[in-house]
């Protein structure tokens, strides 16, 4: 090779690397990653003690990684290399299954499940005060469980569920696993689809009312008007940097819900039952029933019963609660990640309502945020 060719290789090498560094110094993004749904690392602190402790160095490394130019593109390149070239089944803990994504779910945290049970028990004891109501605990499995036939490993939750039931004396238990399928969930997200919850509604109503219900007792989905919100990219594309066709959120309105309204009990204001215009742009799933609010109430003046329901919930209750609204005059949703047990009575008094604790495996594995 000629001298200029060696020079070109050397200079290109250094320029390529330096371009990355310059990009970090010159480009200032928003500080939030929409795709990963997290705050990006802040600029490091420069001071004597921080430098000597190594903290500045660590923070600088995090900052450089988070603010590297074209980071999303680079993450996508890495994902393609791992999934398409190396034929990996997952990238960053997210499986790619045909045109869908799912989080790898091979481990559960028994300590987290035990902690969750203790919080549920405290909420029930604190609020119900042993008034004879039998709360229902409903378990929502992770969607990967429906990939078992394809050889995808999933965590064995049976021992944990058994222990959970033991730790919730006085509760009745509803395992929703058989009421759902792989298609019941969004392709790009952990959450379930509202339009696929007919069987779940029937199962829960049977548990909550103690009655055996037939198909005619349940409001068919055809009674609703279907609206849509698109595109919806759930949590997985950002986490895995792997793009698949986005989802469309279908939500069921009108029909039995025509007279229903919702209220934010913390702010004491009315809110729409579905709010596609004002839902969190980072997570359109929050359009359902008040989104991430701590205490929400759905009122159905047209209900043929005066029965009420209280749901202690995680994010999965959002799409479900409107589908239960035709059967109750009032549904109160309490998020135990926001409202501690001691304050529940500020929002709803125990007055003989049916009580549902509706929680997913996702929450049970990461329950440390429960108050």
């Amino acid at each position, binding site marked *: *090779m*000629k*001298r200029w*060719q*060696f*020079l*070109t*290789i*050397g200079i*290109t*090498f*250094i320029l*390529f*690397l*330096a*371009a*990355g*560094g310059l990009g*970090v110094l010159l480009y200032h993004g928003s500080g939030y990653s929409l795709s990963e749904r997290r705050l990006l690392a802040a600029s490091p602190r420069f001071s004597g003690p921080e*430098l*000597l*402790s*190594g903290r500045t*160095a660590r923070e*600088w*490394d995090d900052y*450089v*990684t*988070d603010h*590297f130019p074209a*980071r999303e593109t*680079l*993450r996508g*390149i*890495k994902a393609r*290399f*791992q999934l398409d*070239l*190396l*034929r*990996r*089944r*997952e990238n*960053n803990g997210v499986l790619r299954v045909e045109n869908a994504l799912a989080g790898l779910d*091979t*481990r559960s945290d028994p300590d987290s499940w035990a902690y969750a049970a203790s919080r549920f028990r405290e909420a029930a004891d604190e609020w119900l005060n042993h008034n004879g109501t039998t709360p229902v605990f409903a378990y929502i499995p992770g969607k990967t469980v429906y990939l078992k036939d394809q*050889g*995808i*490993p999933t*965590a*064995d939750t049976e021992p944990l569920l058994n222990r959970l039931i033991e730790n919730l004396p006085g509760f009745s238990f509803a395992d929703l696993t058989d009421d759902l399928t792989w298609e019941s969930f969004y392709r790009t997200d952990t959450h379930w689809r509202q339009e696929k919850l007919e069987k779940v509604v029937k199962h829960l109503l049977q548990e909550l009312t103690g009655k055996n219900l037939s198909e005619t007792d349940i409001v068919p989905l055809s009674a609703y008007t279907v609206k849509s919100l698109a595109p919806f990219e759930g949590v997985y594309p950002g986490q895995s*940097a792997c793009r698949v066709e986005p989802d469309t959120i279908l939500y069921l309105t009108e029909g039995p819900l025509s007279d229903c309204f919702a209220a934010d009990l913390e702010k004491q204001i009315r809110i729409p039952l579905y709010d596609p215009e004002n839902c969190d742009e980072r997570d359109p799933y929050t359009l359902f029933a008040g989104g991430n609010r701590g205490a929400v109430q759905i009122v159905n003046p047209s209900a043929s019963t005066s029965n009420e329901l209280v749901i202690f919930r995680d994010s999965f209750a959002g799409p479900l609660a409107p589908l239960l609204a035709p059967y109750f005059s009032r549904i109160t949703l309490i998020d135990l990640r926001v409202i501690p047990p001691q304050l529940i009575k500020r929002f709803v008094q125990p007055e003989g309502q049916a009580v549902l604790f509706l929680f997913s495996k996702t929450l049970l594995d990461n329950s440390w945020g429960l108050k």
Partner: protein
Amino acid sequence: MVFSGLTFLCFFLPGTVVLYFALPKQFRNAVLLLASLIFYFYGEQLCLLLMLGEIALAWGSACLMEKLRGRKGCRIVLVLFLTLSLGLLGLFKYSDFLIRTVNGLSGRAFAPLGLALPIGISFYTFQAISYGVDVYRGEISAEKNPFRLAVWLSFFPQLIAGPIVRYEEIAPDLTERKESPEKFAAGALRFTVGLAKKTLLADGLYAFCQRSEQVGQPTAALAWLSALAFLLYVYLDFSAYSDMAVGLGRLFGFHLPENFRYPICSRSIRAFWQRWHITLGHWFRDYLYIPLGGNRCPGLRRLFNLLLVWALTGLWHGASWNYVLWGLWFGLLSVLERLREKYIPVKLPKILQHGCLLLTATLGFVFFRFTETDGWTAAFGQMFGNVSFWNSESAFWIGSYAVLLTVSLLASTPIPKRAAAKLMQKLDSRSGSLGWLLRLLFMLLLLLLSIAHLADGTFSPFLYFRF
């Protein structure tokens, strides 16, 4: 700071290169020294003082020994130098190990000192010792210029994970090296290949090893493949670092020694260790085994010396008994190998020799992997049948990493390099431009893929930093 980190790649390295070549030749060693000190301070802060202390100790001791040559004082200075150097290494690296061992044997509960292990201490201490002993032996002259000695001992390409460079190997480069576009390009390519080995292969193998330890139902197949993957991971991780170190040295005109020569392709334990971490093996041979008598010792004494050297080689890698077991495993096998060759001189087919080596190395590295007895006893148990051979979970993980394992195995052989060299030779003979363009594009592609993996944000330190 790690070579496979964005801070090093996109800030430190370009900055150092630009400053180095922008300044006149007489300032270039100063640039390297400054860069090396910043490099070490970035990761270790006040432990920089320890390294500077070791440099001062080595320089002062060597000068004194040269002054006192032929007199009794020379030996005293050497003993003091070795005591202090090894003492510091022992204090920071082995004090808690010693305390734990005493506690275990005596039932007492002495509190550990809890001293953090300064990165690279094993490497720069051994380099300093090699320098001191070589001066004592009269093999080299003491370096009067402490600054030049500091440039060598702190040289960032090899400071924290080798290769262990003897002073006599590098002394000419410190004063008379000639940088050139050819060397720079060669260094850039070598560095890039090492970076890709680390980010694209070694890190993935590590992830596979971790996954296999977390399965609900382990199987023998997964245990074996995981053990093999771990051996490949250690090799690729460490040899990647060495590639990067050698490449970085070339950028600045230095010729650092090779540390690996495809050990996985060896056909005997002795050959394996002549090709694995070569500079460490030579260090132990020249500064421990030979002074103990080497091959001149009679039977049992020689056996004892061999096993002692192997045990200490293991202990050098980590302050834990599993590393000693690891060293003794290879020591014992190497002794058995010699005995077999002497008393049963049957020439085995090459493929069987390769297979035996791979099997024994894979088993030996199980000790390397787990510091707790539970870990490696569980691993051996799984490998030798106290679990089922196969299940769907294992099938999933093995399937997910099959291509990576295959590519890594191939990358552990000289096949890709020979194929690339043949191709380049053909292209260069047909058209100089095509070969050059391919090298350039290949380098850019590997850099892009490596940086893509780093930008995805997982911190990936080198395994040998722990030593």
